[in-house]
């Protein structure tokens, strides 16, 4: 059973400047005050009173303006941030793809990076060894995999990261935006694998600005605004409310396959 439940969760970031991050200030600052109290530390309220219940089979798109809290919400759902107020419960193996560069060491070879990233995503060494050839073939990097990662272009790094991620079997897949730095031919190829990956995973949350991507992978959506969930519901409705027009109508002019045909309004 895969599920993510969040109850009235808030995420507040304490912002320590160099001074308030030192012990001296806390120890000498307020006599009689509680040492360690963060009352005077400025706080950024990144997420505010979020309640969500995601279940097996959910395919959720995440939309919102920059700074609306999409990435923070993804990290909350991944369990990286535990809510400062409220509760969260995550059941299942989480595979987050936030920053394609993190967990990548520029000094070591592509092969070794594949191994390390796989281990971080919860695979065993044996499982990764059996997948390395498949990843090498998919990424078309060939002999470059022997080279240190610092010799790679951005697109090549994205290929590598996508190769690893799409070869695993996640229960909960969390994708942040940023899977866009590859050329069109590779994207077409990656799309199939991503589709495959999404089909294999139990639960998907996908932050993206592209209507096409959202339409292809998701059936419901969350609209984040200033740290709140502004709207949570059917993909088409949320996108229509968010953009002010129905994106699917325009899309159908270009594509012949209506991805979400038969979606009745509520």
């Amino acid at each position, binding site marked *: 059973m895969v599920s993510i439940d969040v*109850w009235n969760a808030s995420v507040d970031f304490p912002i320590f400047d160099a001074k308030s991050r030192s012990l001296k200030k806390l120890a000498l600052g307020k006599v009689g005050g509680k040492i360690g109290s963060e009352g005077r530390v400025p706080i950024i309220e990144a997420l505010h009173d979020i309640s969500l*219940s995601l279940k097996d089979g959910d395919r959720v798109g995440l939309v919102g303006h920059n700074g609306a809290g999409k990435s923070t919400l993804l990290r909350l759902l991944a369990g*990286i941030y*535990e809510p400062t107020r409220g509760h969260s*419960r995550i059941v299942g193996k989480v595979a987050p793809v*936030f920053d394609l560069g*993190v*967990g990548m060491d520029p000094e070591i070879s592509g092969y070794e990076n594949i191994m390390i990233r796989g281990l971080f995503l919860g695979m065993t*060494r044996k499982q990764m060894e059996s997948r390395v050839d498949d990843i090498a073939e998919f990424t078309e990097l060939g002999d470059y995999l022997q080279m240190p990662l610092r010799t790679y272009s951005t697109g090549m790094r994205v290929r590598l990261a996508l190769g690893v991620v799409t070869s695993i079997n996640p229960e909960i897949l969390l994708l942040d935006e940023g899977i866009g730095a590859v050329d069109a031919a590779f994207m077409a190829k990656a799309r199939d694998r991503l589709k495959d990956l999404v089909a294999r995973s139990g639960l998907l949350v996908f932050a993206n600005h592209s209507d096409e991507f959202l339409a292809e992978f998701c059936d*419901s959506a969350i609209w984040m605004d200033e740290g709140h969930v502004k709207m949570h519901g059917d993909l088409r409705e949320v996108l229509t409310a968010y953009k002010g027009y129905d994106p699917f109508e325009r899309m159908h002019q270009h594509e012949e396959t209506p991805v979400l045909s038969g979606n009745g309004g509520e």
Partner: protein
Amino acid sequence: MQATRTFDHPEAPPAVKSRSFKRAFADVREAWDHRELWGHLGWQDIKQRYRRSVIGPLWITISMATTALALGLLYSVLFKANVPTFLPYVTVGFIVWNFIVGCVTEGTDVFIANEGLIKHLPAPISVHVMRMVWRQVLFLAHNLVVYLVVLGIFFTALDHPYTITQGGPEHPGLSWTIVFAIPGFVLLAVNAVWVALLFGVISTRFRDIPPVVHSFINLVFFMTPIVWDAGVLQSLAGGDSKWRVLIAELNPVFHFVEIVRAPLLGHAVDWHHWAVVGGFTVFGWLLALVILRNYRARVSYWV
């Protein structure tokens, strides 16, 4: 049907609270289950450090050998000690010290240095600690080569009862008791994990701690019997000058060094060191678990 789907809020809050000893234990246990990950990363760290050097990790061994040789010769002259027994003493002491200092100083940086990983991949925070301790274990393994060489050269001086410095106590010489070094080192490594967890979490919140630790650690080195013999204190401390013994005894690092060093050199196994280390293991882990319970979830906010 999409239309019938509900996006209601979940009903009841969960039973498991974020701040609980259960979660603290789970963090350590899950990190232990991830040993394939930190085992691999620890090796990678060593390989990485010497990636483009010709002799690679051999540099670890060479630097230990030169330091031990220089310190051993210098202090054997200063203390009028016998080189064949004093040089092995300094070598082993310095190898163990290097492990301790590595774990403590890198322990303070363990979460700060892994900011990227902590913020992007959900993993128990103890994973980073175990990776760091494992890396230090691998360093120590490289340094053990120096011990074996020194042992080979000076074996004839150590296999019978001997004294390190004049007036010091007589040691029984190498025997089967050398096997005590293994449980001794395991205990040392177990303690390294809680030290790094504790210092790591506190340092992540209060960035003054790493520089403080870095500057105090040198003082600890000179206060710990590594280049000088604790036995001398005992012989000097006849009668009313018992306080001199306290200089060593009150220093926890001394006991940790001793449980590994004594068996490796054929010194008498003194059980009170084991008792002190055992006490530190229990209380240290309790303290670390309390910190882990209260602040484990804060680390990703603080880094």
